[in-house]
């Protein structure tokens, strides 16, 4: 038995390797989709005329992973080939969109996926020094910022039944010296904590055998360099200690397998849907009573509130200044009070949305699958749609934002929306 040890938790964004205006992971800092900057991107843009399009660059491959931003670089993954079996990592200049370098690899895992998704679906992550790129084939690549190979793993090579014929999509998170890959499907499901330095396993945990496309969420620990990572599946939400893989906290109940949970200040908000119960539940964050690794003392939690009318569709929920926001399958933006779950306001933003919106300085930027981008000014009283913009291409990714600019990709192009 692991000796009982108390730990307390606090949200400390600076612990997550944020470097100025970087956007290092899917949904940005702590996977909350909220920019750590006050500088607003333009509220209007137009793909056809080029209005407020700082640059647009053609891509060599397809994908729906999100760009990430490191220093002056925009990092993007893509795949090419009739079977999508060539995997690419590209680095573009944030200044002018020029290609800085490109590396490609051979897929070692299965490439079949649903026609709407791509092998390049998971979003890469960076610790500020390295890039980690994962694909639906479960190939995991670590490069330095100059594109030099640091290590390569083929997780389907290691775990031959870890694949999903609809495609895998969970994005990576990294904390300290551990990068976490959530490889869940109907057959061989697992999560791995992998040493960032050399790509060896720090830990492997078995996960529910259910197809799952959600992504991990990190929460740093106070007074510790460690963190918890929340892994969501169709039947539970579990928190593990990043450095050891020890189970620390768990909610047992149906959760969604597509939109991912989002952290608030006191709670984590979890989309439902798989078990027929719609909406979102709020769970109390792990507290000092949690004892990692000791299943008898692992904190099993109950929901604080459930709001059925706060259903999320493909896009994940957002938390912002006491508000929980979702876009449902009818294209309605819902806002609820994070304390009570009571719906505060609702408004139409026309869907469908595959990518999760992002929030910058009280403004929500949501780009639907038709490439139509809404800008909504948020307050606790209302959501005011300020602008409707067009990019003119199918957009399935979650945007990245930094320093007054939005970066978004389609199968054909990468855009920087900025003044």
């Amino acid at each position, binding site marked *: 038995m692991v000796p009982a040890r108390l730990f307390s938790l606090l949200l400390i964004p600076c612990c997550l390797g944020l470097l100025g205006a970087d956007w290092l992971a899917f949904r940005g800092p702590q996977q909350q989709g909220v920019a750590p900057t006050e500088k607003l991107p333009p509220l209007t843009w137009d793909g056809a005329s080029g209005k407020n399009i700082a640059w647009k660059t053609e891509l060599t491959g397809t994908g729906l992973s999100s760009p990430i931003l490191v220093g002056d670089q925009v990092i993007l993954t893509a795949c090419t*080939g009739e079977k999508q079996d060539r995997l690419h990592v590209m680095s573009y200049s944030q200044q002018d969109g020029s290609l800085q370098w490109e590396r490609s*690899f051979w897929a070692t895992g*299965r490439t079949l996926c649903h026609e709407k998704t791509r092998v390049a679906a998971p979003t890469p992550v960076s610790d500020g020094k390295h890039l980690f790129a994962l694909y639906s084939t479960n190939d995991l690549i670590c490069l330095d910022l100059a594109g*030099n*190979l*640091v*290590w*390569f793993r083929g997780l389907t090579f290691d775990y031959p039944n870890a694949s*999903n014929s609809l495609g895998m999509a969970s994005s990576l998170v990294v904390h300290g010296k551990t990068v976490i890959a959530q490889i869940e499907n*109907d057959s061989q499901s697992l999560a791995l904590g992998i040493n960032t330095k050399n790509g060896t396993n720090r830990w492997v945990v078995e996960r529910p055998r259910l197809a799952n496309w959600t992504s991990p969420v990190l929460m740093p620990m106070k007074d510790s360099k460690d963190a918890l990572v929340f892994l969501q599946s169709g039947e539970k939400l579990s928190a593990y200690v990043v450095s050891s893989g020890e189970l620390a906290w768990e909610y047992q109940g149906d959760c969604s397998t597509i939109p991912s949970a989002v952290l608030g200040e006191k709670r984590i908000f979890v989309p439902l849907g798989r078990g027929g119960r719609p909406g979102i539940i709020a769970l109390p964050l792990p507290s000092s009573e949690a004892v990692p690794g000791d299943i008898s003392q692992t904190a099993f939690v109950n929901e604080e509130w459930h709001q059925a009318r706060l259903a999320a569709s493909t896009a994940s929920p957002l938390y912002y200044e006491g508000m929980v926001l979702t876009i449902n399958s009818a294209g309605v933006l819902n806002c609820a009070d994070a304390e009570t779950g009571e719906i505060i306001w609702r408004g139409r933003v026309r869907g469908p949305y595959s990518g999760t919106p992002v929030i910058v300085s009280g403004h929500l930027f949501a780009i639907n699958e038709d490439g139509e981008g809404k800008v909504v000014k948020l307050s606790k009283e209302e959501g005011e749609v300020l602008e409707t913009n067009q990019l003119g291409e199918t957009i399935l990714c979650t945007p990245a934002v930094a320093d007054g600019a939005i970066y978004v990709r389609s199968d054909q192009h990468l855009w920087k929306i900025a003044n």
Partner: protein
Amino acid sequence: MNRLSWAFCLAMMLLVGSISVSHAETSTDALIQDLLNVGPEGKGNRKAAQATQALMESDASALSPLLNALNEANPLAANWIRGTFETLAARLLEEQGTLPVKSLRAFFNNMENNPAARRLAYEYLIKVKPELEKEIIPASLDDPSTDMRREAVAHLMEQAEAATDEEQKLQLYQRAMLSARSEVQVKELSEILESMGQKVDLPRHFGFLMTWHLIGPFNNENLVGFDAVYPPEEEVDLSISHQGKEGIAVWVPHQTYDDYGIVNLNEALGKFKGSAAYAFTEFTSEAAQPIEIRIGCKTAWKLWVNGELIFSREEYHRGMAMDQYRMDATFKEGKNEILLKVLQNEQDEHWAQDWEFQVRVCDVTGTAILSTTRLEPPVEDFR
């Protein structure tokens, strides 16, 4: 300095030079060996990480040994080598504006080299000599590399489309079909050829197995059938019946006429949910040889070749495609037995009703390997 001293100095310089070259070669080889040694679960990664860093700082002389190493690399090592090669080549291109064209060309020209490695050599060759594309691609119709072949076929299809003489057009399309291995290209070519009045035997082109014996259903309620060992797994005797889920089950011969070799178990055996069935066929191989068995299947399955379990997969109704699963196996000369167990679950959604599979036998490039006792004439004529 007298003549003897000069000769001594020269000899020493040559000796030092040869030692240094030899050391560099040994060092490169040793570093590459570290890349080749990587294995499952990060085995060998620590050494490989150091090796790749050192190799990326090498000069152009490391490029050929890296390509050569791809001939013996496992899929993980291949990517370590590729990543190292690309980084080194990119750096050399930036610093020197060129790459060793002669050695890249020589590596590409040697058909004995790994097809994917030859393709990599080609991609870097045309970065420095783009004009070679026009020379190489048209000559790659029978290349072992599927990428090279695909581009060559695309080139020929463009020529065929542009041809004004109908007889020449037909010949070009037929030649393209002969070389095509890409599913997309074969489909397009077969449609074109059929529109021109030509009969295309797609099952033969791909190597789909069309003739089976089937038995079932056995029980798979609550998914118990995946691990259950029913009699056909212990012995296949087509004359023996077995107790099945719905009574006595007997082996029934089945011939599929589907262009892509799909065997529809709902039609052949009946629509049974929560069930398992077995499909058995014999394949006569003209020689002992390594082969690939490629399966498409929407539900759970297990595959045995000559009694050896090759792979099993427990997934239901997530998708099916040609070549969804690729497995290496070995055929002996003469008769080989292929047994496939295909399971159906109890989902009642409309999209969870299919119970079917397709199997083909080919080489690593996707070129069909046909049983010497395959039924002739083409399967379509059996209709």
